[in-house]
């Protein structure tokens, strides 16, 4: 079955965003970090393990009447480094963007090192410096340990 036929499994949306090329199985986590779900008031369409041309399988998510903030783009990049985001207005793609892994990520992640001062009740937000995009690795500004992406994403 072609990719086009697969995407027809989800109907077009009028306004909102389409996040494509999410690694298969990661869409639920992605929705959770974007804080969209049963209480957010958005209509969400989700397709998991769709045959993809690029990778073997992928997930696709469509969220109606939702925009994406710049810092959310960097967050998505940690879970889905190849994702593309289409901004839909009146059924048309107004803009299409690829996510980009930022140089630093502030405030979103928690340090997996329990002995790190950023996990104490101090008035600071976490800061992670990306040291490698593929495989994803980031260094904590405070304890200076380097963590794998999977360890960091597990802490979101």
């Amino acid at each position: 079955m072609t990719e086009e036929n697969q995407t027809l499994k989800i109907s077009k949306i009028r306004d909102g965003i389409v996040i494509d090329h999410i690694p298969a199985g990661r869409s639920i986590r992605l929705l959770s970090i974007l804080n969209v779900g049963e209480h957010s008031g958005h209509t969400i369409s989700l397709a998991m393990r769709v045959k993809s041309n690029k990778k073997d399988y992928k997930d696709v998510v469509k969220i109606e009447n939702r925009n994406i903030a710049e810092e959310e783009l960097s967050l998505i990049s940690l879970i889905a480094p190849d994702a593309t985001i289409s901004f839909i207005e009146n059924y048309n793609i107004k803009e299409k963007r690829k996510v980009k892994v930022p140089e630093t990520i502030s405030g979103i992640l928690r340090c997996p090192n329990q002995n790190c001062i950023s996990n104490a009740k101090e008035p600071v937000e976490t800061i992670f410096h990306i040291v490698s995009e593929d495989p994803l690795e980031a260094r904590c500004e405070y304890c200076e340990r380097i963590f794998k992406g999977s360890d960091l994403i597990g802490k979101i």
Partner: protein
Amino acid sequence: MLKNRSVVTIEDVSDEDLKEIFSIADDMEKLLKENRKADIMQSKIMCTLFYEPSTRTRLSFESAMHRLGGSVISMADVKTSSVSKGETLADTIRMADSYSDIIVIRHPLEGAARLASRFTNKPVINAGDGSGQHPTQTIMDLYTIRKELGHIDGINVLMLGDLKYGRTVHSLIIALSRFNVKITLVSPESLKIPDYILKRVHDEDKIKLSTDLESSLPEADVVYVTRIQRERFTDPNEYQALIGSYSIDSNSLEMMKKDSIIMHPLPRVDEISTEVDRDPRAAYFRQASNGVPVRMALISKIMGVM
């Protein structure tokens, strides 16, 4: 330039800074031998915040500041201070900022000194943060090697013991890798150097990992021993079985070069037997005595008076 800058990790101290600190420390040592005071830090106050027990580090920092003619204020005990009432480190630092000109901190959590430096414009010196770094010990260790052997480039350094939790070795490995040296890391498998430290090393080819002490001893110019903490082992028998293979005694001395040195950040427990103390190669007490002149030099550089 270290003037008005914090020293949180050894990477905050450039090669040029190191050279200058060594040269000033030489002068300070002469001054101390002649029983003279520097008096270049009059009206300056150092605040020492020690959230963890310390003997040598705290005393040598305080002694260094007094020898420079400055004064020291300190938090007597975490239990009697506002920390015990739940005050954040950030708030304590804001307070220390208005009371002093330079802050020295030791804390059980990693990154504490970095956090402290964010809440003050005054320079912060890291005197040890959890299993993180201990940069002033490293400067002192490098100074000791240079003084004892005459040079740092071209030497073989063997580091022995707890390389996983020992913060002094973490800073020292990173710093030594900036020189033309060969480093052999000998530790039990369960206490080997963490990957996140190896990733910060300048040239990983300079480093060799081993679990066999005897084969590495004859090559070493410096044998840097660290304490293997009994409490790291759930089974006391395991500790007893291990300690013999990772300690230095008179047999080890037989295998070592005649002009090599043995160093230890102290306190020493079972890992260097007391019979070694009489050997001229035992440099650990001389190493500890370098703490004051080296810290005098560092404080002077940071405060911009040298």
